[in-house]
């Protein structure tokens, strides 16, 4: 059942490629603007890099949150998902996983390439990609709660950013922190452990909270 939901969302994303590419290009452009604006000050760029890439990733991931449930809500598929005999949390987890595959994975793959503009050493580039690999699923998971709560509301897009961005802060701090630690020559284990812990906690709680929010939004 989970497979069907994931397959369906991926199939839809393949057929609406503009949606997927918008997120990726937004990320690429925001990250590229900073080196252009600041100029070739390598030392400043190297210090800024982790924060800029991570903030751009947060915003890019948030940009696509509105679509996680709204299309299904508008055409009535969400009613069918709610009435499915399979547990709603499981189906929601499938949708979140699909959202991560569509919006998170391209960011992870693109980040090391963009990091070169900031003159990051290769070890830091690897840490950057790894931190995004652990961090972006958390963004999809937590974002799902916001998307479900603001479903069908006017101005939901602004509201979702107010709801979700504060919850993204810990991920930002430890994600960017890992890269900073690596450039400073310190160990990154602690940062990764904390990110991993966030991932596990949100993996357990977010589908359940999202399912509950969806039921409320649909009444």
């Amino acid at each position, binding site marked *: 059942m989970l497979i069907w939901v994931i397959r369906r969302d991926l*199939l839809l994303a393949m057929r609406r490629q503009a949606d997927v590419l918008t997120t990726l290009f937004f990320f690429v452009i925001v990250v590229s603007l900073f080196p252009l604006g600041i100029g070739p000050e390598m030392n400043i760029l190297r210090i800024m890099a982790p924060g800029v890439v991570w903030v751009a990733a947060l915003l890019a991931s948030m940009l696509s949150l509105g679509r996680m449930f709204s299309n299904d809500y508008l055409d009535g598929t969400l009613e069918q998902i709610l009435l*499915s005999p399979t547990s709603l949390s499981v189906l929601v987890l499938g949708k979140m996983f699909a959202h991560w595959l569509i919006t998170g994975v391209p960011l992870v793959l693109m980040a090391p390439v963009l990091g070169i503009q900031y003159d990051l050493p290769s070890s830091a580039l690897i840490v950057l990609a790894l931190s995004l690999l652990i961090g972006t699923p958390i963004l999809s998971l937590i974002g799902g709660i916001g998307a479900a709560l603001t479903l069908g509301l006017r101005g939901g897009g602004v509201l979702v950013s107010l709801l979700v961005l504060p919850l993204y802060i810990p991920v930002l701090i430890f994600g960017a922190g890992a890269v900073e630690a690596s450039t400073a020559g310190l160990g990154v284990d602690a940062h990764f452990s904390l990110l991993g812990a966030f991932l596990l906690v949100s993996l357990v709680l977010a589908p359940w909270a999202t399912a509950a929010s969806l039921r409320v939004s649909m009444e």
Partner: protein
Amino acid sequence: MLQGNNLECVRGDRVLFSGINFSIKPGELMQVRGPNGSGKTSLLRMLCGLAVPNSGKVSWNGANIRSISEEYCGVITYLGHMSGIKDELTAIENLRIASALSGVEVDEKRACEALHQMGLIERENLFTKLLSQGQKRRVSLARLLLVRTQLWILDEPLTALDVSAIELMKNILERYLAQGGMVVLTTHQEIDVSAAVTHQLYLS
């Protein structure tokens, strides 16, 4: 057996309906009638558990559907106003995914047969955005042929259908009722479905 006890629906400060009681046994049909805005869709959403009644309860074989929600979802099929059809998917993909969500996995051949039965021939692999409203409706109705549940809750299933499709739908409903299915139906069209017992529920 589906039972409604003293159901009430309030929208804002207006009471749409109250004191609705009914019970439907296998093989029985309930037609819900009433003018626009009288709460037909609200009642149907209550019956399938999407909405909570302001008072009263809906029970399935004696148990409140709120307490057995997953089990209850396995025995009902709800077709709402919105068809749940994705424009970017083909008719077959739509049907297979909708059936899978209802807990029945069907292969391509089986889905194709169901679409043929609904009169969609050589349209199986077209994107549904290229189909007419009536054809889209046929795609969503085809799910009824694949998913074997005990209760169908159909909200305006005949909208946009032509005369031959309405006749087809009548036959499908009659066959299902004869096999012991239960149907709750709203429609503005006249449809003369013969059932063991037909309840009429008027909302005003």
